């Protein structure tokens, strides 16, 4: 796979108004068409990274570069909670981004139907969120993200609140879609297995201040089958990353310098 940077974060720092140093000199590059997972302990600044990329709130310092043809308008965000409007049907929830762009319901109808079909929710268009299961709500949330035909997807623990079976089903559905649509995805999770199963790369972060401490390339071919989840290679990656994570918990964990960052740290972590 040729590596073209789609999003580059350079020395990004974020200090919240209450003085919390959420990110300190963070460097991260997400390649075109890559699925990169951000993994780390709670509070290490994973969500903050996505928020900075999405332009929700100002960075304290540093800069973010967008690769060719990309910008924030081609971007969609999927939150941890489905964040649906409870007063609106599935259809109306999915229509929202287009509605905000001033597109009439009639003109948006085919895009909305297409997005709902992509996440396999045909037949539930007129349901209200309270009538849906947690997994279905998440699908609606993803459909809402897809309806604008984004090129970059930011997903903040999208499946964190779901049970294991629903999660793995949605994981393989996501890979399926990604394989067809070639999005660039930044995927936040605190689940090692999910990160390894999905990603081209797993970026491990440490807290206080939030920084990158390991960057592991998962060199397993797609499409990844259920067998991959039980292969020795998969287990080895999980072991590597969980070691990096326990490393992250210790306060002396080093920060990764930009030159090292894009390299494969598979060995250095071991």
């Amino acid at each position, binding site marked *: 796979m040729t590596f073209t940077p789609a999003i580059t974060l350079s020395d990004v720092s974020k200090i919240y108004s209450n003085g919390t140093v959420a990110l300190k000199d963070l460097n991260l590059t997400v390649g075109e068409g890559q699925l990169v997972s951000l993994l780390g302990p709670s509070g290490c600044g994973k969500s903050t990274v996505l928020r900075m990329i999405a332009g929700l709130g100002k960075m304290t310092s540093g800069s973010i570069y967008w690769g060719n043809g990309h910008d924030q308008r081609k971007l969609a965000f999927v939150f941890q909670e489905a964040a649906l409007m409870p007063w609106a049907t599935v259809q109306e929830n999915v229509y929202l981004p287009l509605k905000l762009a001033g597109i009439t319901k009639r003109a948006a109808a085919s895009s909305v139907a297409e997005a709902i079909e992509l996440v396999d929710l045909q*037949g539930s268009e007129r349901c209200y969120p309270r009538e849906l299961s947690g997994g*279905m709500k998440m699908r609606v949330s993803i459909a809402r993200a897809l309806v*604008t035909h984004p090129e970059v997807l930011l997903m903040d623990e999208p499946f964190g609140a779901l049970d294991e079976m629903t999660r793995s089903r949605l994981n393989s559905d996501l890979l399926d879609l990604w394989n067809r649509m070639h999005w660039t995805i930044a995927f936040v999770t605190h689940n090692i297995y999910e990160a390894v199963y999905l990603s081209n790369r797993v970026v491990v972060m440490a807290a206080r201040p939030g920084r990158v401490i390991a960057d592991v390339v998962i060199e397993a071919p797609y499409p990844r089958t259920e067998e991959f989840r039980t292969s020795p290679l998969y287990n080895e990656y999980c072991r590597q990353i969980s070691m990096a994570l326990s490393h992250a918990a210790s306060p002396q964990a080093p920060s990764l310098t930009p030159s090292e960052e894009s390299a494969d740290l598979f060995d250095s972590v071991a």
Partner: protein
Amino acid sequence: MSLSNPNSHTQTAPNDRNGVTQSAPVSSFQSLLSAEVIAPVVVGIVMLVIWEVGVRVTNTPPYLLPGPILVVQTLIRDWGELFPSLIITLQITIVAFMAAVVSGLLIAILFTQSKWIERSFFPYAVILQTTPIVAIAPLIILWTRQVISGESSTFVSLVICAWIVAFFPILSNTTLGLNSADHNLINLFQLYKASRWQTLLYLRLPSAMPYFLGGLRISGGLALIGAVVAEFVAGTGGTRSGLAYQILISSFNLQIPRMFAALLLTTVLGIIIFVILTLLSDFLLRNWHESAIKREN
């Protein structure tokens, strides 16, 4: 997706929904016959019987405590005078309530447009609320008389009093509701570059709906209370007089059964207002608010 649909019950969901909507009227009719309704009705009837029998057995004179039958007889006999009073109280209540709804909503929207406006003015809304209406009603009546002369002066001043009482629950509830929109949804609107107007219309106002309707229910009852209290203060002045005037004048004349009849009308009016507003709020929230929905589990 190549995979089979994991939520195969998805397909049947619309049918389920139709089932629910169709059965809704049936269940609400059945609820009229349910124990929840029958029990308080039985209690009420027993109390009335005890009251009537008690009054007869003890030979209590009607100017101390009239029996319920006498009250109803008086209500029917004096209907010609009581009904116009009922209409006047109702008019005051409705006009004040409408004014409270419109002003409460608009001011709440204004508050959420700028934290500074809210910080500067909210304390005064609180002061207006905490000042007892009985204490300021004479002033309001006096001042209104300076501005508006003649018949409508009393009416206007009573509306103002009732409005002051009814206005605050709407303002505070709606302000709370407008600020309670889901954090992620606010971010989403920001991400898609929604205008202030779009955010208000499509996110903040719908989010505030349950809060606003809660305020509405409290406010409807308060408008009636405000109208009655202010009328007590206004006393016998003016020719257009409401139920409070009837209660007041009956107690002066020791027409206690008539006083009870007027009291009964006031109470019934209050209950009707509450029921209407509750039905309205259940109707408006039927699709999404948990409290308005009987969950099927």
